[in-house]
């Protein structure tokens, strides 16, 4: 459970930052003159939280194959798309097609952005581990 929470927390913070960036870009394109109150600041946190629910629920300690990981990622992305579109348009997607597409594109970009950032973080950790391993091998030899 601790590992699951830690992984979800990382995803949450990365998602939230990327959601803020996506809201800025899509907002500038579709409603540049729109003004908001303070309540808008809570939305990235809510969307970030909702986007983390599928990966939290579907988290497993089992050793998954590459194929299983990819299938899980696709399912998670579809669920997140459904959740976010439902939240943003509250069942009126047909009236806002360009915006709905923009939101969907944003969700996909954010989803893969999170995966890419996590991979880059893992790459850095792997490099640190390799360096430590070399030092360990030299010391043991």
């Amino acid at each position, binding site marked *: 459970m601790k590992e699951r929470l830690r*992984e979800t927390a990382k995803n949450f913070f990365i998602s939230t930052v990327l959601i803020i960036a996506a809201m800025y870009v899509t907002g500038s394109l579709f409603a540049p003159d729109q003004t908001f109150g303070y309540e808008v600041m809570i939305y990235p946190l809510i969307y970030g939280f909702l986007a983390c629910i599928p990966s939290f629920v579907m988290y497993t*300690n089992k*050793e998954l194959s590459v194929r299983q990981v990819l299938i899980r990622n696709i399912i998670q992305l579809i669920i997140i798309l459904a959740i976010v579109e439902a939240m943003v348009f509250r069942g009126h997607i047909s009236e806002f097609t360009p915006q709905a597409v923009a939101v969907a594109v944003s969700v996909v970009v954010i989803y893969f952005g999170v995966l890419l950032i996590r991979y880059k973080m893992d790459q850095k*950790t*792997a490099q640190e*581990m*390799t360096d*430590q391993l070399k030092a360990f091998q030299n010391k043991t030899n």
Partner: protein
Amino acid sequence: MEIEVITIGEDKKEYIKIGCHRVDSNIKEIVRFIESRQGKIDGKDGDSLVSIPVTDIFYAESVDNKTFIYLQKVCYESGLRLYELEEALSGHSFVRISKSVIVNLMKVESIRPALNGRYMCRLMNGEDVIISRKYVAGVKEKISR
């Protein structure tokens, strides 16, 4: 069983002698333990018994309740369970990297990320073995000592 430890002169070769009524599984286990401390592990190549130098082992894997020891090019079956092998090799540079694999860190060439928070060990013989998320912290601890 009485245990007697005596100090002998530097000019004499050190030895361990076990006096027993019969060589049963307990005695075999003690012998295996002593051999592992001396840097050797028993493996089976078909019906014949092979003494494997610990430094030659790349990794050990448990498959269908059997334990296999992998060297650079050959593989032997071990009579030990993986956790027993892990215990026997605990004084050496071995670490558990997943539920079914222990790896010799001296035979790891590099570590790179795999999918889903796991890492991949590239061994010096070109093989890849996965480090599960659960065991990453243990590996980090072992190599940072």
